[in-house]
């Protein structure tokens, strides 16, 4: 427990440092966050002063940071300059779509990906292993935005099987639950497939290596000697002992959820956190940027904390380190 507390404290400190770094980086970049507000008609200097006061841009940086952290603790990230709405509301609006896409990709990678990794290990060096390695490496080398476009070209534009963009069709108000769910699924397939294809290589590779290591252990041979079936040996013994190191990978995945999908979001007009962040950066929307920054940093820190804890739970030796 002592170990866990120390590890958690360390995570919090890391996150705070990261946020401080980001806060000052964002403010040190040139640009006028109020510029977007004067698109139609220029603002008078009085209006500019009012706005600066409203967004606390007239305060010294240190005071702004304290105010930001104070608000962040209470879950209040201020008001977006660009949208004129609370940052929390904007982020919460996008979060479900980001989580849906991210969780689906995660699911694919941790079921299909791990299964393929195990198959590779079992067929080490044989054609199946080679083919799967080549395929996964090709996926890993493919730009997600380009793959997305190509999939749209084939499955949406040419074959009309799946929708080309968006995450739901408007006008399903009166429709049944099943229709709505099916509609969401249809919209989800192409973006999820794209992201999975370019990222599945890492879980396959991890699983393959961990499995090879496990298969070399004496207890696997012992299990075989006891007359257990190949399936029992593979999944009951080897795979289970390979699990801790594979689960470490889980932590690395959380951050990808936040901004990692930005390219795919762009291609599929999927309104997630990635495109929100990109838009906020372009508009110099400080409060919104810091809001997404908190989420991104929290995801990374939580991710590595979770993977450490999982590792420690499943493999007590890790705690001693």
């Amino acid at each position, binding site marked *: 427990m002592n170990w866990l507390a120390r590890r958690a404290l360390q995570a919090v400190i890391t996150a705070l440092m990261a946020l401080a770094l980001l806060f000052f980086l964002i403010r040190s970049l040139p*640009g*006028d966050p109020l*510029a*977007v507000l*004067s*698109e*139609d*008609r*220029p*603002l*008078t200097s009085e*209006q500019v002063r009012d706005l600066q006061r409203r967004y606390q841009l007239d305060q010294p940086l240190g005071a702004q940071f304290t105010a930001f952290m104070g608000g962040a603790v209470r879950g209040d990230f201020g008001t977006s300059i660009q*949208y*004129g*709405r*609370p940052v929390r509301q904007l982020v919460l*609006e*996008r979060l479900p779509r980001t989580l849906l896409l991210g969780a689906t990709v995660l699911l694919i990678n941790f079921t299909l990906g791990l299964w393929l990794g195990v198959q590779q290990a079992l067929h080490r060096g044989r054609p199946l292993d080679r083919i799967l390695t080549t395929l996964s490496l090709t996926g890993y080398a493919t730009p997600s935005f380009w793959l997305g476009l190509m999939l*749209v070209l084939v499955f*949406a*534009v040419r074959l*009309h099987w799946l*929708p*080309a*963009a*968006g*995450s*739901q*069709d*408007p*006008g399903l*108000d009166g429709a049944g639950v099943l229709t709505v769910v099916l509609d969401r699924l249809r919209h989800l397939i192409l973006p999820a497939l794209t992201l999975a294809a370019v990222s599945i290589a890492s879980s396959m590779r991890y699983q393959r290596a961990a499995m090879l290591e496990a298969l070399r252990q004496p207890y696997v041979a012992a299990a075989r000697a006891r007359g257990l079936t190949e399936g029992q040996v593979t999944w009951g013994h080897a795979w289970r002992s390979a699990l801790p190191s594979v689960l470490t990978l889980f932590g690395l995945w959380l951050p990808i959820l936040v901004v990692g999908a930005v390219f795919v979001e*762009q*291609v*599929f*007009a999927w*309104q997630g956190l990635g*495109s929100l962040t990109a838009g906020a950066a*372009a*508009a*110099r929307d400080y409060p919104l940027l810091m809001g997404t920054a908190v989420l991104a940093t929290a995801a990374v820190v939580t991710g590595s904390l979770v993977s450490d804890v999982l590792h420690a739970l499943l493999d007590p030796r890790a705690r001693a380190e």
Partner: protein
Amino acid sequence: MLRRCGRLLLLMTACSAAPVAGQAAPRRLVIAIGQTVTNVVPTLSRSAAAREISDLVFLRLGRYGGTSFGDRAAVPELAKGWTRRDSVTLAFDLDPRARWHDGTPVTSRDVVFSFNRARDPKQAVSVASLLVDIAAVEAEGDNRVVIRFDRPYGEQLYDATYHVQILPAHLVASIPPDSLVSSAFSRAPVGSGPYRWDKLEPTEYLQLRSVPGFFLGAPAIEQMVWRFTTSQESRLNLLLTGGADVQEDIIPPTANLSRLPERPSLRVAHLPSMGVNYLLFNQRAPADTSRPHPILADMDVRRALTIGLDRATMAKAVFGRYASPASSPAPPAAWFGALAPQPVAFDPTQAARLLASRGWKDSDGDGVLDRNGIPLALTLLVPSSSVSRMQVALVVQEQWRQLGVKAEVVPLEIAQYLARRKPGDFDVAIESFTADPSPWSLLDRWGCGAEANYGRYCSRTADSLLRAAHLARRDPAPPIRAWLRTVAEDFPAAFLFAPDKVYAMPSGYGNVTWQVESPWQMVWTWTLAGAGR
């Protein structure tokens, strides 16, 4: 009806299109747009898309009548008519049938409230400055509103109708202006127009539903849905795969038109837009706006840079046949567009001669003209989000290169583009400006010292001509014509062309009418049966 049609700026492209057999026009119209709309309350909506939607929910005293001058500048909407009492007073009689979507009658109290809010610069930043000539707005009983102006001028009726949409005082008056944006009212606004607010799925779509008892006539199309999709090709793919029925900007590229047959029920509708594309020349030094621009302050150089561009080919390459030439700030679609002079011809030889006569020669043989050691090199600002302007920028760069002018294309996110344009930190900027249908509104862009005059062009002659037009009580055409000619001959910008608005939409609707300054405004009069029935 006929009388009204005659005064609208109509484009009856639909009348010639026969309905496709077996294809009923949809009762539900899904329009794919590039922006995201979160708010349609008139004083709060900033984007063009939000304003177009807002026009279906909130009415004005009168709709734009096809000119901004005289007492025919509006067509009855909330007011069933108006009378002029004297040269500075107009009295509006409200239509007694007008109802808010919650059933309450629209009264003079709503009108007075809305005008007072619109005239307060603290509450309505963009509108208040346009209403400075209005002296007072008063109610006379429940159904009459009297508007008094500071002085006699030609655009009084236009000012009293075009800029102010009427809000329900019984719902809005109690909300402090600052919290209106986060109020329950702005999440579910109540208006008096042909369509009422139905639902907003944030970042996905906004849906309006028709008001069956709308006092001017029940709309035939029951639902209007705007689907937000940022990238243009996604919008087109949605359109072709049935995820949307209408796309408002299918070109550029013109190659998209060849894809429309993939969905046979689609047809093209185009209407002239109120936008003009031009290359704005900065007449002041970007680093120090108190000094003239080292290159562009010279009128002959600006002229050479303009006539050295093959604008017709450029328009054709980017927009096909869907663009008209422009020679001045006046959009060809505006009522005063016809008063603009002819565009100057493309003449690269003359351009080269002009530059040479001003001392620009290629003395070091690097292909770029120079004078006193300074190369003829310019930065060309362009908003990267605009497909058409990016293409135009690259074509301009290439054509200027052939003249010996080096242009560095600087694509910018829109916020940065605006941030650089405002203080005059650029040489040339590719602008696309959509004007109000009043020539007076152009003063803000081209008048000496005006707020949005980013190129710092200044001609006292031009300003006084425009002022004369604004105050004209009879025929404003002669001073407007003179103003447009003066501006065109000063080359404050290389005026390129006015692209049309090109829609892909389902065929089969009857009585299709577009309102140029707000295309969907008359959609409630469309019928589901095709033309001829």
